[in-house]
């Protein structure tokens, strides 16, 4: 039997999506707070954004409201713009420090 994508999404209870997205988000936050390499911190931020995408899609399917999925596209586009700027900054740091460890950045006190 042919199922639409929102129907497929709805085969899993909504709570599971919330737990899953929260777990992903928590992993991302923990990573940002504990890791010391700028690129890994950056990857953890992306993980947080993807947790949001999962959550928005699930809510959107359950509420039969397309707005949530449109939001996901905007998040993806903005995240791509952020990646390009962020990697540019990290490359600039690497050129000057030959490293991307945030512990090296102590010229200004935290």
């Amino acid at each position, binding site marked *: 039997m042919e199922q639409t994508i929102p129907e497929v999404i709805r085969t899993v209870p909504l709570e599971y999506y919330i737990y899953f997205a929260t777990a992903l988000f928590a992993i991302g936050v923990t990573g940002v707070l504990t890791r010391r390499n700028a690129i890994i911190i950056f990857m953890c931020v992306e993980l*947080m954004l993807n947790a*949001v995408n999962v959550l928005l899609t699930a809510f959107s399917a359950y509420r039969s409201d397309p*707005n949530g999925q449109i939001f996901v596209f905007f998040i993806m586009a903005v995240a791509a713009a*952020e990646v390009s*700027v*962020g990697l540019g900054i990290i490359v*600039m740091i690497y050129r000057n420090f030959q490293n991307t460890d945030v512990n090296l950045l102590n*010229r200004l006190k935290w």
Partner: protein
Amino acid sequence: MTSIILLSVLGIVNLFFGFLKSNKILLPAAMVILALVFGVNLIDWNADPRSYFNEMLTIDRYSVAFTGIVVLTTLLLIPFSQKYVREGQENLAEYYSLLLFSLVGAIMMVSYDNLLMLFVGIEILSVSMYVVAGSDKRNVRSNEAALKYFLMGSFATGILLFGIALVYGATGTFQLTQINAGIINPANASLQPMLYIGMLLMFIGISFKVSAAPFHYWTPDVYEGTPTFFTAFMSTVVKTAGFAGFFKLLMAAFFAAQGFWVPTIMAITVLTLLIGNVGAVAQTSIKRMLAYSSISHAGYLFIGLVAVNGKLSANAIFFYSLAYSVATVASFAVLKLVSDQRQREDYAGFNGLAKTNPLLAFVMTVAMLSLAGIPLTGGFFGKFFTFGAAIDRGYIGLVVFAVIMSMVSIYYYLRPIIAMYMQPAENETAEPIAVGSFQSAVLVLLALLTVLLGVLPGLFSEVFK
């Protein structure tokens, strides 16, 4: 709306000026563009509120007023952009264009009607700021500021987005007024914990952006490392747009959940006031002191938010933002001119400035007095109106605390004045700071505007009726 289109198109046109051999046209071109946008924006002042793009953006008096502040601030700041990066910098046009593009984000933040536009506006503004924070590419301090700002900013964005997703889950919409209706709707009552967690995460995300305690810790470092010209832009335009957006969010979307967020914001206010003012006392660098001062001013603006006093709060926030922006632009302009020539940003760098450059010393004095809230300057009435809105709602304790904190602030705002007027210059032959005649005129205008706001506050105190 016209201002968004104009800024985007003319920002691109401005990029093409970069192909010209001479850099001389860039600054006048940017100023003309900003003046044009400022004028076009004011046309909508008396028009009826109109919404655009399927109710994504609303242009009403509120958005026109705050758009006016951010454009005017940029217009007054931009004459000081020369030499903000190292000598021989090639691609100046990009930086002017980035400023124009970031204003588009700021305008979206003050006129949004849908959380989607709030998010896009914040990001347009922030991503441009990440770039300009690192514009001094070979300076390791600028590098470090850019990376810290970028990592903290994108982290905050993630938190903000998770909050938006949870609020969407609890109410089923991104539209501000419908969120408010969704909160009241008894069908959503069981989802209240999700709504509250979502709101809390959104507050955390926005507090990061407007540098309110306890999410302020990136501010002093980033402000110190960023080239001074862009620091001034960050501490005025970003803060004004952030607060205008925050106020709109609280009033239009979360009004029904007041019982939850008023205590939360109150806690943030008290912490911000305490950390901003006490932190500023300990600083030895004027730039870092101004960074802490911008944290403390976020606290005073929060008092206007907490009051939830409708038009009274909106007027207070408008007036405070205007007075704060003008005084901050003036102080950063003087700091930039002095630190460019003397190569230092500490208090001693200002020693004897009154002898060598009476004008700079006078403008800096007016700006410092306004930031401290001394009568006859704009800052006094800014504080007067925000405190008044809070007292009207019976928050006496909060206002008493804020007044004590602003007394603390007088200590660190008077230090540059003492250095300028009472300390002798480091060496007798200290050369006067070179200031262009146009820059002098803008400095005088800034000082006049500050005094005007303090003498005739009625001109701007009741813009929203």
